[in-house]
């Protein structure tokens, strides 16, 4: 029987050295974070994403552009430029003790910098049922259950 590792991984190569990629990833997140409604907890109020660029700093979905405050989505657990950034991530509908872990690595490659994002939900078992932000995957499980019930 196969098991599922509760981790999603993806990567991209960008031009330039890791130090530049790390800087643009963190300082520029207000610009590059996508605008579609599925990428925001509150798409109507969300103005920008913002990192507090230090260990223990927050990742904020900004609602008030005057003071940069809004919803705390995450806390930086590793601030290690140029190669490593890690943070916890949770959304308000999850139970209080549940967080996911995001790990971002910046590695030199021939074409520039390879940026790898690893998102680990081992500590957030409720996430599939509480995450509109990722779509309706859990609905598939409900459909499975319903089919079993009708059988």
């Amino acid at each position, binding site marked *: *029987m*196969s*098991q*599922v*590792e*509760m*981790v*999603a*991984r*993806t*990567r*991209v*190569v*960008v*031009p*330039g050295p890791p130090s*530049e*990629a790390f800087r*643009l*990833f963190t300082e*520029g997140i207000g*610009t*590059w*974070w*996508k605008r579609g409604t*599925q*990428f925001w907890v509150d798409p109507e109020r969300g103005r920008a994403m913002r990192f507090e660029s230090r260990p223990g700093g927050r990742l904020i979905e900004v609602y008030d552009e005057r003071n940069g405050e809004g919803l705390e989505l995450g806390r930086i657990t590793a601030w290690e430029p140029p190669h490593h950034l890690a943070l916890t991530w949770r959304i308000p509908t999850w*139970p209080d003790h549940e967080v996911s872990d995001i790990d971002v690595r910046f590695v030199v490659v021939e*074409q*520039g910098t390879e*940026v790898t*994002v690893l*998102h680990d*939900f*081992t500590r957030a*078992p*409720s996430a*599939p*049922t509480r995450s509109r*932000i*990722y*779509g309706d*995957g*859990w609905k*598939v*499980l*409900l459909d*499975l*259950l*319903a089919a*079993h*019930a*009708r059988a």
Partner: protein
Amino acid sequence: MPDKLDRTFGILADATRREIVMMLARRPHRAAELFERFRMTQPAVSRHLRLLRQSGLVDVRAEPDDQRAREYALRPEALRPVERWLEEVTTFWKAQLDSFARYVEGRQRPGERPRRPRHR
């Protein structure tokens, strides 16, 4: 008396049952491990497990006399929705990293040929 369909959706409305499903998604667990994990009585945990078995999500793989040694596993078809959910998370981050790559390329010095980002 709630009909069978109502009861089925109720299966996943409970946080403990969702967590059991996630634990079993990683690997099978013995009953003793599940009893230890949750701050509730053994009969309460057993009731959750019974509901999960009735729902078709969970199987008992080994059933020795000692109830605590009974081994619970997620049925393979129940894993696929979890896998599909993780695929959606991957799609989310692929889209974000694609946007990040375009942002980085847009900030390259004029005259420097931008490189195509490579996704894996």
